[in-house]
């Protein structure tokens, strides 16, 4: 956003999101070659007009694999974040709005779950469960809901202090009505912001697991897995590791920027603080 007005910066953010989603949706039509097709005669080819980003150790087109990998990476990220957001928000709402005992119970659980250094338990769970897409998503959601829950809880607590919630109660509305008609609509925007930033983290974490071979099968066209295969040849064919890594970084950057932008737009009354990155 150097020398760019805020408005133009936002156009970049939306355009980036559009391109990422577009590539993920139309991946099969955007490839140059079949991403699974091996060509042992043409291994480790450097970037060229035919193979834009070169070929890998089995002669497969890196560009096409990256394009198809977008779909996989975004799908994993979106799946993980949606599960975390739904589970975490429900628990957070319950904790913030329910009785003191429920709140104490949930907070105790959160304190324990968040006493683990985030990714270490995820790694351990993924390692113990073994590779595979469902196992990986499970590992990423075992702890992931906790951040959402704590965030939504603190938001509900601060909304509870607001006059309009108090007056809704004194107008005789029941708890469910207050929760779903008054509290939740005021939480949705901030949850979206939080999720967008979580998405960046989830994409990176998933790529990390795939990089370690603890996620999807190694031959899958997925950014982390491609990096995993490319790392063995990084002295001779650095492009194999460079481009998937770049893709991960761009996707993470995009969702972080989107989160920043949405926060500027949505944040009313400072419900979202800078805690989440």
């Amino acid at each position, binding site marked *: 956003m150097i020398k760019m007005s805020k408005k133009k910066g936002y156009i970049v953010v939306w355009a980036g999101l559009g391109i990422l989603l577009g590539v993920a949706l139309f991946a099969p039509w955007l490839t140059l070659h079949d991403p699974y097709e091996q060509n042992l005669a043409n291994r480790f080819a450097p970037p060229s007009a035919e193979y834009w980003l070169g070929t890998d150790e089995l002669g497969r087109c890196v560009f096409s694999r990256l394009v198809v990998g977008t779909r996989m990476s975004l799908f994993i990220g979106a799946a993980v974040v949606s599960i975390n957001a739904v589970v975490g928000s429900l628990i957070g709402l319950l904790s913030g709005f329910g009785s003191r005992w429920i709140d104490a119970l949930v907070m105790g659980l959160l304190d324990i779950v968040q006493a683990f250094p985030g990714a270490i338990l995820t790694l351990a769970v993924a390692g113990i469960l073994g590779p595979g897409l469902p196992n990986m998503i499970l590992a990423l959601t075992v702890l992931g809901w906790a951040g959402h829950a704590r965030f939504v809880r603190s938001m509900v607590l601060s909304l509870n202090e*607001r006059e*309009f919630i108090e*007056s809704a109660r004194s107008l005789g509305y029941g708890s469910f009505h207050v929760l779903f008609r008054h509290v939740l609509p*005021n939480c949705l925007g901030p949850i979206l912001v939080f999720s967008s930033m979580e998405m960046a983290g989830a994409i990176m974490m998933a790529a990390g697991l795939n990089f370690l071979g603890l996620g999807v099968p190694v031959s899958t066209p997925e950014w982390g897995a491609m990096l995993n295969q490319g790392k063995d040849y990084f002295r001779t064919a650095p492009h194999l590791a460079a481009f998937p890594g770049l893709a991960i970084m761009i996707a993470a950057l995009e969702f972080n920027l989107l989160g920043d932008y949405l926060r500027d737009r949505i944040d009313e009354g400072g419900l979202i603080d800078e805690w989440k990155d």
Partner: protein
Amino acid sequence: MSLLELRNVSKVFRAGWFKKIEVVAVREVSLRIQPGEIFGLMGESGSGKSTLGKLALGQMLPSSGEVWWGVEDRLAVQGIAQNPYGAFNPRHRIGFALEEPLVYHDLVKDKQERRRRIGELLNLVGIGEECLGRYPGQLSGGQLQRLAIARILLLNPRLIVADEPTTMLDLPVQAQIIKLLKTVNACTGASILFISHDLHLVAATVERAGIMHGGRLVEVGYIQDLINKPAHPYTKLFVASALADAVCRPSVNDAFGAG
């Protein structure tokens, strides 16, 4: 029979983990409010008058003592908040916010009938129908406070607890809201518990009032008596402070007459 009766009510707040801290906000207060009257509750900040308001609303339970309401339905006790800017959900249009209590409590089934009822009340509080399509953020504090009053009137309250309803508003708007509260009292016969730290405001609004200090209700009486012959030492101090810099004005004596 009185509309609201507090019998020896106390409220204690407890905090602390290892060391227990106790704060007595309200101490053994007994008070009766008659149907149809406007009762003023004065005191400095921290005197416990807001806590007493919450007890009267039933938003809080007393630590000891009893609160009795002479009403059939809990909905007949309603409050007006200090901050009108926060009284409405920022995501709902005013029209929705006003219809919501009627729909939720199933008071008026017919949509046309609901519209008519809301229109009537808007007329009473002096606000045009065009505000129904607006969001709270687009309205001024005075307008929002009028709408908040209209909203509780939908529920036909018998007792309205107004806790500093004008402190966030400018002087002329303040006067309009006080006037409106008096109109509401006259038209619907609802009693009003008017809580304020401003003696002048209370004097211009109510007939009977009480003064709180340190959680106790130190004196209750007709407002003229409180001002002209205060009995309790704190009442004397309170009244003297409020009048101290106002004595030079010519119209001050008629002001209390006008109350």
